[in-house]
């Protein structure tokens, strides 16, 4: 199989480093994106379509990162784009909001089990921070409990002291405990009587650079009961899982109800919008928080979100993604076994995590992933991957074929 090279990407990156910090900053860049080795990865795209992306060197990839989640129906989905374009002709960023805002809030309230209202912003981090502020406003308490490795954005409260720019004061009211550990939660609550405003968690544990973990039997019910007893606001950060596991919210998927729930990535198939939804009793608190942004009420992403949710419901998108994810992960595990490697798959099939467990350092896994990328299957080595509804069984077959060839390369190189 032909392997890719990226001279144009590399030249453009060098140019970028002169005027952009880090060349490409953040999770799409080669550093935070863990492009290891960097020579195996493209940096810039010329276009994207459906399940695929095409880099500026003319290479085509099946994109299993899906823009880190937003690509849920396929890039440039014609119906979503048509809905957005129709709204664009009418209005987008204006002095007063468009009527789509009300339609979208109504649709979310009708669709998401724990939603009695919806508040819109742009990024996932906008609404996780709003949820924390709302919990504090509603309870008059300061402290927030989160789970170790859980990602809730980049606001200072979500980060660790010692990270550049983060003060001890930024994180002093945040308590971090292990996921799936009800006893640790109980101890943290007991140690801070009447001081815990909220517990924030992803619906299942999907940290970067670590195996993912599904909630253990009784975990969520235990968390829910404790929060209810202690007057603590239960916040579900559904930014990554939302609409991939269930259109009704991932709390519903796991059989409990959040007080506040945050959506973003899967909401509008790549159009920039996020939403905080919640129970009626928190509507007053969220209204009282001063929180807004220049582009937050723009109408085009709202039109895209309306169409995305409608399509996901019609086709039962989560079921499609689960089926494809199951088929792919099973195929990858079998390919590894056939070639003498051990691939551990964790998390939910539609957004699975995987790593080769044959060496402790992870270098073998990094090499295997890089060989897949060089052959047109864009995996990453540090983060969960994503399925979208545009992927086909043919794509899955091709991916498994590439995976096998990449295992052969590792074997040829003596691992």
């Amino acid at each position: 199989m032909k392997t890719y090279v990226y001279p144009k990407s590399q030249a453009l990156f060098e140019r970028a480093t002169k005027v952009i910090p880090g060349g490409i900053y953040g999770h799409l860049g080669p550093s935070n994106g863990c492009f290891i080795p960097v020579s195996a990865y493209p940096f810039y795209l010329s276009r994207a379509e459906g399940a695929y992306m095409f880099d500026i060197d003319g290479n085509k990839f099946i994109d299993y990162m899906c823009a880190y989640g937003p690509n849920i129906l396929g890039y440039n989905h014609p119906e979503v784009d048509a809905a957005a374009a129709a709204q664009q002709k009418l209005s987008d960023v204006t002095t007063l909001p468009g009527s789509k805002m009300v339609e979208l809030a109504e649709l979310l309230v009708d669709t998401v089990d724990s939603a009695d209202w919806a508040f819109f912003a742009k990024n996932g981090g906008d609404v996780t921070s709003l949820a924390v502020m709302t919990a504090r406003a509603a309870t008059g308490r300061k402290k927030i409990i989160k789970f170790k490795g859980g990602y809730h954005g980049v606001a200072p409260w979500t980060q660790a002291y010692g990270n550049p720019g983060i003060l001890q004061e930024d994180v002093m009211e945040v308590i971090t405990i292990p996921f799936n550990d009800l006893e640790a939660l109980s101890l943290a609550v007991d140690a801070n009587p009447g001081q815990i405003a909220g517990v924030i968690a992803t619906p299942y544990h999907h940290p970067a650079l670590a195996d993912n973990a599904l909630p253990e039997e009784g975990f969520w019910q235990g968390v829910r009961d404790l929060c209810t007893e202690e007057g603590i606001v239960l916040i579900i950060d559904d930014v990554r899982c939302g609409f991939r596991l269930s259109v009704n919210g991932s709390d519903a998927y796991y059989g409990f109800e959040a007080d506040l729930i945050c959506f973003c990535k899967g909401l509008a198939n790549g159009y920039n919008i996020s939403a905080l939804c919640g129970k009626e009793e928190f509507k007053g608190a969220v209204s009282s928080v001063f929180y807004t942004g220049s582009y937050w009420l723009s109408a085009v992403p709202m039109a895209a979100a309306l169409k995305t949710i409608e399509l996901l419901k019609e086709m039962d998108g989560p079921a499609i993604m689960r089926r494809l994810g199951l088929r792919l992960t099973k195929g990858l595990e079998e390919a590894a076994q056939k070639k003498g490697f051990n691939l551990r798959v964790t998390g939910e099939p539609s957004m699975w995590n995987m790593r080769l467990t044959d060496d402790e350092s992870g270098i073998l896994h990094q090499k295997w992933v890089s060989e897949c990328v060089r052959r047109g299957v864009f995996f990453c080595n540090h983060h969960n991957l994503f399925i979208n509804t545009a992927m086909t069984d043919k794509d899955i077959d091709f991916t498994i074929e590439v995976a096998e060839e990449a295992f052969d390369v590792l074997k040829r190189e003596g691992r």
Partner: protein
Amino acid sequence: MKDDLTRAGVSLHGVLRNMEDLCQLDSSARDLISSTALAVRFDVPGLEALTLNFLHGQCRAFTGSQGHRDIHLRFLSPTHFLAMMEGKSQPIPTKGLSKIGFMTGEFSTLAKLLENYLLADGASLEDPHFRRINTILSAYIAFFGLSQVANLSPVGKILASGIEDGDMDIDVIGGPGIHLRFQGGKSKTIKGLSPSPKARMVFKDLKTAGAILLGERDSFAAIGCGELAIWGRVPMIDQLNKLLGLLPVYLS
């Protein structure tokens, strides 16, 4: 925020320890101690002691308070040691008074030579041989200084406490290679590469290493440009990168 304990640790185990490499890399330094056989210990409260063993043209650095020493220099505090490094104070010799002439003679000349390399100006750095030595010495200061920042500075201790046990290689192609051994939230710098590293950081050449370690080159851009390759346990590399970010504060 600088603290004197960490600054002193970096000065002692990063800068002064560099006598070992200076004597290896610079022939005039070697000549200066060609007939010397003397061990000098520097003892600073709150820090591991450093012994420099000068023996017939070579210098070896040892940490810890055990072993032979001919001259024992004590300091009242890290601040006192820093004042000595800046030429504003004197140490308290508690052993080897009869040999103290070495400190005011050959050692003082070595210290000046080291300073010339480390504080070199643009003209000197145009000489490739001089620049190579300058970069190797600077790299070793950074590599050994990193462990001091990890073990002593308030933020460094928090960062190091989050690093899993194991070895991490830092390799410079055509230059020095070391590994950091993390155990129980403490770091130790060891010359040479590890036989079983959990993570690797490989600089493509000495020039790149010097620029990144001294904060003159953005490490994120360097990774993308292929000047700095990383492999293995990314959380270790990530924390180390944050420690590297703290280092220039303690070197200034």
